[in-house]
């Protein structure tokens, strides 16, 4: 792994006299074949006149054949539509889940209840004991009971259920299944270790000034300015950097600016301007030595609804001159040396966290992979462009590395499936709070965190960089 590589000659070359007058050894940066496949997340014409019914219809149309096949394999019973359901008959139904939640914020309720209600408080979780699970197909809906974990499910997931309708019109679920992992194209065997560095949540422009040192250490480590020759040769194996969203801090989003009158804000500069300039300077250091993919996130200056479109080049006057700067869309997908990466900046995962009992980002990430859908809660509680032709968030091909950004902690897991299928799940921690990035080895699909600790108020140790396991 990476840390073994860099620990080979720990400090030895730094503690000795320079070998000769001229430059030390030059480490070639390994380059990778790269092909972006983000076309499906590009929004061409933007028409917001359509309703969201289309995206649910298209989702069900796309998922129905897959789920019918799974259901046939699993239970040998007829697959029924809700309209020709017979009471008491054991059967299987394919449909979209809807969870009716009392606590779900609803603008209509706030307006229609004419008691001048206070706005509902923001909560960490919007689930409650009175939630009801409902399955919808093209025409009807039915309430679900029985062996299905109500709190774990989220609105918008397409599943197949097995059971029977009771006399009171509710459906007793005995078992259910999800679309599960899609097919995967095998990944080529690589001859040497190559790494892709994933980082997210840089949080530039925040009020904490000390956050910059860790970031600078990260940049120096990647560009090979840190450590001795062993570490530098290790850094040369990092072939690509992927920044997964929230490059700017939440505090750059000035909520007052939109409500204040124009004449008061005319002379003030938006907080994002300074932060983007900082980002441009950081990116300049990176793109000068290796390719960098920049994904936008929740707080970045691009559109809010998924799929988020790439940040505009004109915001990076310094770094956009380099061809190594790739500004990408928010669900990100690309083939890096034959290894397929897919991931988001984390909005989909944190939204599911709010509307289900699942807490671990890694668990949610795995759940979305099994559901075969990147963002089931879009468009219900997550902003989403009103697609009508197809739902681009359905996974048609299984990625090799599936990640989500802005997680509270670093976690990773290797899932193995039939036919040698392997998926690495990574939750990329928020850098500004954890000072941690992670390195994915393209040869072995292993992943390890890289932490930077620096001076801080409660820490008297010297500034040190430790690349820990």
């Amino acid at each position, binding site marked *: 792994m990476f840390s073994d590589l860099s620990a080979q000659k720990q400090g030895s070359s730094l503690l000795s006299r320079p070998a000769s007058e001229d430059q030390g050894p030059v480490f070639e940066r390994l380059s990778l074949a790269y092909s972006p496949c983000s076309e499906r997340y590009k929004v061409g014409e933007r028409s917001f006149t359509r*309703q969201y019914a289309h995206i649910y219809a298209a989702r069900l149309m796309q998922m129905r054949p897959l789920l019918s096949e799974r259901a046939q394999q699993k239970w040998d019973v007829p697959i029924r539509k809700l309209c020709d359901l017979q009471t008491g008959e054991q059967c299987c139904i394919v449909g979209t889940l809807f969870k009716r939640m009392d606590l779900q914020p609803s603008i209509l309720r706030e307006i229609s209840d004419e008691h001048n209600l206070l706005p509902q408080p923001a909560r960490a979780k919007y689930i409650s004991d009175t939630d009801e699970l409902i399955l919808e197909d093209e025409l009807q809906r039915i309430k679900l009971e029985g062996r299905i974990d109500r709190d774990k499910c989220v609105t918008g997931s397409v599943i197949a259920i097995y059971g029977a309708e009771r006399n009171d019109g509710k459906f007793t679920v005995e078992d259910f299944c999800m679309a599960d992992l899609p097919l995967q194209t095998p990944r080529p065997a690589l001859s040497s270790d190559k790494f892709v560095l994933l980082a997210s949540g840089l949080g530039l422009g925040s009020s904490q000034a000390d956050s910059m040192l860790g970031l600078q250490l990260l940049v120096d480590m990647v560009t090979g300015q840190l450590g001795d020759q062993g570490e530098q040769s290790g850094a040369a194996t990092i072939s690509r950097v992927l920044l997964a969203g929230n490059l700017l801090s939440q505090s750059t989003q000035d909520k007052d600016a939109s409500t204040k009158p124009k004449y008061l804000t005319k002379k003030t500069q938006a907080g994002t301007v300074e932060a983007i300039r900082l980002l441009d300077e950081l990116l300049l250091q990176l793109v000068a030595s290796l390719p960098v993919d920049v994904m936008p996130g929740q707080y970045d200056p691009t559109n809010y609804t998924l799929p988020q479109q790439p940040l505009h080049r004109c915001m990076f006057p310094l770094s956009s001159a380099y061809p190594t700067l790739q500004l990408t869309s928010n669900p990100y997908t690309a083939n890096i040396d034959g290894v397929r990466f897919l991931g988001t900046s984390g909005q989909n995962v944190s939204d599911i966290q709010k509307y289900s009992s699942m807490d671990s980002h890694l668990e949610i990430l795995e759940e979305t992979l099994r559901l075969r859908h990147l963002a089931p809660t879009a468009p219900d509680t997550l902003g989403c462009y009103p697609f009508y032709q197809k739902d681009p968030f359905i996974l048609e091909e299984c990625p090799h590395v599936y990640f989500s950004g802005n997680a509270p902690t670093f976690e990773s897991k290797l899932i193995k499936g039939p036919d040698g299928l392997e998926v690495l799940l990574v939750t990329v921690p928020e850098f500004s709070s954890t000072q941690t990035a992670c390195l994915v080895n393209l040869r072995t699909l292993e992943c390890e965190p890289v932490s930077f600790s620096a001076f801080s108020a409660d820490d008297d140790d010297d500034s040190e960089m430790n690349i820990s396991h």
Partner: protein
Amino acid sequence: MTTKRGLITESFKVVKKARRGGKREKRPTPSPPPQKEADTGTVREEELQKLRQFDLDWRFGPCTGISRLQRWERAKLHGLNPPEEIRYLLSQTHTDPEYNLR
């Protein structure tokens, strides 16, 4: 907490779109084609009837907000076998707004 503001319609005048009228025509079940009319009228009426039947077919998903052709193409894409006849009709009459409505 809340400042009193005027209605939104004071700054933005209520404008009714002309196509609303066309949209409403889509829904009511059309009366059987009148027998006494000229042939062209009957053919047109029959074709429109077929298109309305297509609109009402729930298997092909919701029909508001997209054109008939877009809806037909979506159904084709997802392997739902929409009738070829509809596509033919739409391609013949793609300039006629009554045939292609959204």
